[in-house]
């Protein structure tokens, strides 16, 4: 059902925003989220996190206009990427770290509770 819904949802909006491709990986003590942001410079990326969400807004250096595509969306212009992701576990927003290289944004979000060593009785 979830896949069906995702397949039906367009990855663009009339507000001029495109949904970027993204990936969420569980890295034991942290959640690693990456975004593919072609045409974006580091200084134009904004990242917001809460305990259970991460949201990015990234302005493209040059707006993209697709003039002949589709019917209703003909001549549509996109100038930014925008996406909010609900995280699979709670994280510590203050300890989040990010890097940007070759159009790929990597955000490391440490989990609220790290590993706990359990002694065997």
């Amino acid at each position, binding site marked *: 059902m979830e*896949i069906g819904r*995702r*397949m039906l949802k367009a*990855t663009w909006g009339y507000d001029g925003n*495109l*949904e*970027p*491709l993204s*990936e969420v990986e569980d890295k034991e003590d942290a959640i690693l989220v990456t975004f*593919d942001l*072609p*045409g974006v410079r580091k200084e134009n990326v904004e990242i917001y996190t809460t305990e259970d969400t991460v949201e990015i807004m990234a302005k493209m250096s040059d707006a*993209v206009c697709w003039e002949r595509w589709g019917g209703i969306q003909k001549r549509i212009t996109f100038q930014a990427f925008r996406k909010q992701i609900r995280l699979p576990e709670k994280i510590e927003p203050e300890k989040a770290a990010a890097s940007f*290289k*070759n*159009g*790929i944004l*990597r955000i490391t979000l440490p989990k609220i509770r790290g590993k706990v060593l359990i002694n065997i009785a």
Partner: protein
Amino acid sequence: MEEVVRIVEEERIEYKNPIVIEGLPDVGLVGTIAASYIVEKMGYKEIGYIESDLFPPVMVIHDGKLKCPFGIYGNGGVIVLLSEVVVPPNAVYPLTRALAEWIKEIGAKLVIPITGLPVENRVDISKPGVFAVGNSEEAVKELKDKQMELLEEGFIAGTYAIMLRECRKRDLNAISLLAQCFPVYPDPGAAASAIESLEKFLKLGIDVGELLEKGEGIKLKARDLMRQINLSAPEMQKGVEQDMPIMYR
């Protein structure tokens, strides 16, 4: 009995033992990006298409003309198979059987499926490496002669993997080129590396400069197809490519 996969040649051309390049959507969209760039740069015309009741009920419109999204391009010496839609897992076997049959019929001398090899640290790799898999002793010898780096152990999964097998069953030499790529993002850089390696087998003289220059625009246009690939990857058993075979030596 009606054929499950139909290869329709709209234009009769005289084949001269062609080399067949296969660029189907897969990880990093390496094959699709490389094949479309080759078709564009070489000015290959569409000579046919492939249809099947197993494919998604989708047609594509280019320049106002209705087209089948799975096209056959080229000339007597080079054939390029290019799809703009994902091949569903249940279509892989009938498709590769039909393609290998047809490729045998036209007297092709070599089949080269181009695809990606996902690597986690791709962002740190400035020029992706290209690995190769041959489907016969002769094909492997050719790879060694051309000093290609061989994929020596591991699993391969997807249409290209079965294509290698179906070609071998028909004594057709096939060589798959796998360029290091982003696992879930379109990768024009990997496609450029694959095209450069292709030059060792087929002297097309294609300059990949424009592909690298327009890479960001290509990534933008390829988002939706990449998303479909990512959704179908588990069913296509792509995860197995990261596994070690039990008979590893």
